[in-house]
């Protein structure tokens, strides 16, 4: 397998694994956060504005971890610098 093939194969597999493993943690964390928020809403319904706002801010912070993994996987597929480098090299070789 030459360089191009290795880079392509590893990029594709890593992109899939990144988003797959990277969404497990945030999903579990968000589930726990929402369940705790629901039980505290049931205990104190008149604090619901504060609880809801804090819940949304907390969910956004947990979600950002999954977003980081998504961004890495998108970069690997669409803006991969190593792939662009070997493609530029191959195009130059064909053009000569």
């Amino acid at each position, binding site marked *: 397998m030459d360089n191009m093939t290795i880079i392509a194969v590893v990029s594709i597999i890593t992109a899939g694994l990144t988003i797959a493993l990277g969404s497990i943690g945030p999903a579990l964390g968000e589930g726990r956060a929402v369940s705790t928020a629901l039980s505290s809403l049931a205990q104190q319904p008149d604090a619901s504005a504060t609880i809801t706002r804090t819940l949304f801010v907390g969910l*956004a912070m947990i979600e950002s971890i999954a*977003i980081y993994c998504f*961004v890495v996987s998108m970069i690997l597929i669409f803006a991969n610098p190593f792939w662009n480098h070997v493609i530029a090299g191959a195009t130059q070789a064909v053009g000569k």
Partner: protein
Amino acid sequence: MHLSPDQLIFWQHGFFKLNGTIVFTWGLMLVLAVGSKLITSKLSTELKRSRWQNLLEIVVTGIKKQIAEVGLKNPEKYIGFLGTLFLFVALAALCTIIPGYEPPTGSLSTTAALALCVFLAVPLFGIEEQGVGGYLKSYIEPTVIMLPFNLISELSRTLALAVRLFGNMMSGAMIIAILLTITPFIFPIVMTALGLLTGMVQAYIFSILAAVYIAAATRTRKPKPTLAVKT
């Protein structure tokens, strides 16, 4: 299929390019500035007021209430900055309804610029509130050993602000683009609606986090007890 509106070039002359990010940002700025100017040109305090003035009043009082709830004592000082952040990001997300439009916040340059504004605004508001010495002392707040960690946390939460907003907006646009090529038209429409929802939530999150950081920087420390002398 491009990663961000940066790659959508409208006009190019040598080094200068007008890409999608710049054009859409200027469009949003025009709408916000001209719209507000027109609506506030004839303000009325009577019972009868135009519905646009009503809308603006609801938005402004809502933002003021949120800023006060976060813990900032006089919201009037901060509503210019925080309100603008919220309105810009929210309008950028809302306009995805318009065909052919791509949110400029889907490009890392825009979100990095907004995060840098917050990064600069937090010390400025902190120094304005507590003086240079008082603000710098907050960095060694629990103990001096925490100084590098406080500095790192400043940098990392700015980075997190930028990447969070960029990732959310870019993922929305990318999912729609991918779905358009493989599924019937109903699914991209549903995903556009979901993208609207996440866009508004992310606008709220961005401004609330900025407000929380400013509140942490301007929070008055425990005042030193002074002796009250009865004369």
